[in-house]
């Protein structure tokens, strides 16, 4: 049976070695890992929420430190901390109201929970089973809400009804955990389906015979464009190739395969072409709290060109990319510098880097940043899985998703 700690170590190593590609995968795997952390955490009778928070925070700190460039990991850790706080709040609230099932809550999240309370016995059994079973990612994946919420025809329901106070006590401790796990499952599902959620809005934004410009390759953008195409919108796409990784070429291939009219241009031709463009749609690496965007290198230039020609600049991103930190926050690592071999062929330039003949200091420097920062004033609209938002509204979204207490996950190191 794999211990949680080994799972955590494994994941930390993967993050450290940059073996997980993309924000979505990182976010999903982080959520899954934290779900197993929550499910394996032994809870005392009192202060359950604090114990859970500490456990998640301890793991989260390691994860964030492992790859500070991937902000999605930190976002998910904070989301889950927020979930625990919320669940704790509602459970104490409901405990105060007694066991009445008619608790009316104004929160959307509580809607489902009422069902669970009604089925509390079955839910307790399900939660108990999920803790007893080997908490591998596989089995945890099976425990997605649909299957878990379906009442199981086991005898446990009757048993627990018959049990007395001890069962009630355990059910209370299980309940918080169970609710948290349910909420995390929802979160995972949200991450999984964010592309579809975003793509649904495509038809509303892309109109007939428009020209769309994008740079590089973003999966979200691809799905967005394909969704519009499937709805029989006919439009053209300009793709700036996105040097030095040239992922725009890959995107062009994919779009052509889907039957879209595609034009590939060089990055440097963006300004020349922007006057013919109706809308710029790009993906993002992260959306910061002030509405600024961290996006693949070159996009700032596109944003400036779009502003000059008053072309709407739309950023599509799943809500897991929404980061509660500000770009000036010292914890935020804004950029990642990749290998110069993307730009130059090492062999051809090896004579420029012969330090023995050039006085010992490298005269040729190659800088290959991965990201650009786009200030919020250049962004016209954000499309997330929850709908379209203007940059000035981002702070409000963040207040929904995150609790202000969790912005700094690294609490221990600051106090000590």
């Amino acid at each position, binding site marked *: 049976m794999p211990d949680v700690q*080994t799972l955590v*170590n*494994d994941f930390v*190593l993967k993050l*450290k*070695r*940059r073996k997980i590609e993309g924000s979505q995968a990182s976010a999903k795997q982080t959520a899954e890992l934290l779900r197993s952390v929550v499910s394996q955490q032994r809870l005392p009778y009192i202060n359950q929420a604090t114990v859970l928070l500490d456990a998640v925070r301890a793991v989260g700190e390691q994860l964030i*430190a*492992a790859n*500070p460039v991937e902000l999605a990991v930190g976002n998910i850790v904070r989301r889950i901390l927020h979930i625990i706080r919320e669940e704790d709040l509602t459970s104490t609230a409901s405990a105060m109201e007694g066991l009445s099932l008619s608790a009316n809550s104004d929160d959307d999240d509580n809607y489902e929970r009422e069902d669970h309370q009604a089925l509390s016995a079955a839910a307790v059994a399900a939660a108990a089973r999920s803790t007893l079973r080997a908490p591998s990612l596989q089995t945890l994946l099976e425990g997605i809400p649909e299957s878990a919420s379906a009442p199981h025809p086991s005898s446990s329901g009757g048993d627990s009804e018959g049990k007395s106070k001890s069962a009630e006590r355990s059910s209370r401790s299980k309940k918080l955990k169970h609710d948290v796990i349910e909420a995390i499952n929802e979160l995972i599902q949200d991450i999984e389906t964010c592309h579809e959620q975003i793509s649904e809005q495509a038809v509303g934004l892309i109109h007939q015979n428009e020209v769309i410009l994008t740079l590089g390759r973003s999966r979200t953008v691809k799905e967005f464009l394909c969704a519009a195409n499937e709805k029989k919108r006919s439009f053209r796409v300009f793709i700036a190739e996105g040097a030095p990784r040239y992922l725009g070429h890959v995107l062009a291939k994919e779009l052509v395969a889907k039957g879209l009219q595609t034009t590939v241009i060089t990055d440097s031709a963006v300004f020349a072409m922007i006057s013919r463009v109706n809308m710029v749609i790009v993906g993002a690496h992260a959306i910061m709290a002030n509405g600024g965007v961290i996006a693949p290198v070159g996009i700032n230039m596109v944003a400036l060109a779009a502003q000059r020609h008053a072309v709407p600049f739309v950023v599509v991103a799943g809500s897991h990319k929404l980061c509660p930190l500000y770009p000036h926050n010292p914890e935020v*690592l804004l950029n990642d*510098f*990749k*290998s*110069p*071999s*993307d730009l130059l*062929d*090492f*062999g*051809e330039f*090896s*004579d420029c*880097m*012969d*330090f*023995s*003949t*050039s*006085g*010992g*200091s*490298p005269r040729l*420097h*190659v800088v*290959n940043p991965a990201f650009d920062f786009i200030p919020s004033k250049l962004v016209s609209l954000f499309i997330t899985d929850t709908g379209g938002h203007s940059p000035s509204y981002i702070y409000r979204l963040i207040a929904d998703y995150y609790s202000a207490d969790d912005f700094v996950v690294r609490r221990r190191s600051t106090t000590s």
Partner: protein
Amino acid sequence: MAQKKTHRTSSDDPEELTRTVLQAVLLADSFAQKFRPITLERPKVLLPLVNAPMIEYTLAWLESVGVEEVFVFCCAHSQQVKSYLENSQWTKQPGAFSVTTIESHDAISAGDALRVIYTHGIIRGDFILISGDTVSNMSLAKALSEHKDRRKKDPLAIMTMVIKHSKPSALTHQTRLGNDEIIMAIDPGTKELLYYEDKVDLSQHLISLDKMLLADKSALSLHNDKQDCYIDICSPEVLSLFTDNFDYQHLRRHFVKGLLIDDIMGYKIFTHEIQSSYAARVDNFRSYDTISKDILQRWTYPFVPDVQYLGNGLQIKLDREGIYKAPEVVQSRSAHIDSFTVLGNATTVGDNAVISNSVIGQGCTIGHNVTIEGSYIWDNVKIEDGCKLSHALVCDGVHLRAGVVLEPGVILSFKVEVGQQIVVPAYSKVSLLPQPSKQDSDEELEYADANTGIIESPSIATMMNAQKVDFPTSDADRSGTSEFYVSGAGYIWSSCEGGNEDEWRHSIAPIPADKLSESLLNAFADVDAPDQDTSCIPASGELLPDSASTVGDGEDYRDSADFEKEVEATFQRALAGVDLENVILEINSLRLSYHMSHADCAGALFHSIMKAALVPSYSSKNDLYANAVKEIIKWSDLLKHYLKTLDEEIEVILKFEEISVETAREFSPLFSNILSCLYDKEILSEEAILSWAQEKEGADESDKIFTKQSEQFIKWLREASEEEDGDND
């Protein structure tokens, strides 16, 4: 046999192939002593390269390319390597990556190591052979599948060598890694390696290829711009080949060349060129410097300090201009940190310190007004105020007192202490351990020395104590290297076998300007030469030894005067004490390269001898005559070597005549005397002298001076021969 098993699987579908465990053999020993004196105390693979032991880079790469089983072969300092690995992330880590150590103390070469591994019988299929000081981020998948495909078609293709495009410097003929230029011949179609030479004699612009290569192959491309990455994908046969040929020691010099020459077995070696990724091996101090800088320039991404691949767990931050800072650096506001610098954890930097292009380890203390440029400073080094370091390597625990200056290329080994105001001269190596007296120039045997080095280590303590007694007496006024021992601790090593002239090639310091301009001159001289050179390639394809170097200005290249000069230079060396045989060898090769006959050689040689006779002072003709006779006697053996036929002897006489005309004052009065002396010493036969006289009879008066002068001698000779003839009748 395990071998057979893999063979069978390789003939199956590719899915079967992927299921075999990929193994790697990592040699945690370089079997060389280029990093001495440091390697006397710590194995090379554990030396920090940008604050992480070299072996970390190699293991991290192996892990990233999907190797599942690594056998680390340790020899010298095996305990240190083992205990390091036991405490590292690699052995603790669960999952598919396992690291096993194999220990042997008898191995003195890579060949021995592979033979030991063969006896263990642990290699089941294709494996990667790598040395523990290799830094790479290449992807192996393509090379590996190419190798396996070739193996399927041709079981004799037993090895794939990874190479990389990299131009050698036109000036110094060395790669940026400080190795010599490598010449490879590669079949452009199949990428088969046909020829490999890593010790090319560049002064001659000559390499010799077996003409059979051209007979077999339709095309062949010769490269000098390829760098050997020392990453090999080998089949299990490689191990058994090493076992069969017990004299294979060096991987390249013996094994690769041996296979290329060997026609009987027909084993083939192929190359795989990597395009955008990085691979290089730390072979000497120069490559240590170069690779460190490449890492800081991020060519090795993701194996760079700020990505936590290498397991020190510290979150290093990359600032602008390539400045890497560990979390707990204490830095004075007035300190100036320049581009491409690493500051290790818990290091403090004092006021007005200037640090550029350097790597500073953990826990170092750098005082005020210190200047550090292009240097490598390892952990826990204490540098007091006002020191100046440029292009130096400073190991763990070194203590530099105030005002010390390290000139370029200095190596300070572990815990060396340097007293106040001392200037450590360029390229000096200082260690607490005394230099082993037994200097064995044979690289293969060097690790035997390293073991004796360990045995010697107990004596450090006593030695250090002896020196430390004197510490308080150190004062700033008495400076100089002699003081080194009084106020500091450490032995200055004399430069090892390469000699001091070669020190600059492999040092951390950039090549000094004067050396550069020198090689620049040579390079320009060489520019004219090549076309003549190519025409000069003798049919036999013999290589010129390097001592006959200094190519002239290239214009009168083949002129006999030039040849004479060369011979004279060679002869001068002979006077300086070079072996007679070597001189003959050199003159022979000169003769071949200049297309001269034996007669020319003899003439030129005689010329040199006579010149040598003029060198010592002489007061009278008799003195000069005595000198000449002495020289002639001394070198008669050498001369006789070239005087095989009559023509050559005549040539010598003609030459002598020429000399006498040139140096009318000195030799012309002595002509006949010396001629008779040559006859007496049996250098010239009477036939030669007579036919020379005969030849001259028809000449005009001015040419006859010397025949007239020696008329008497010739007459006597004639009579003698006639007498002889008469006797015979």
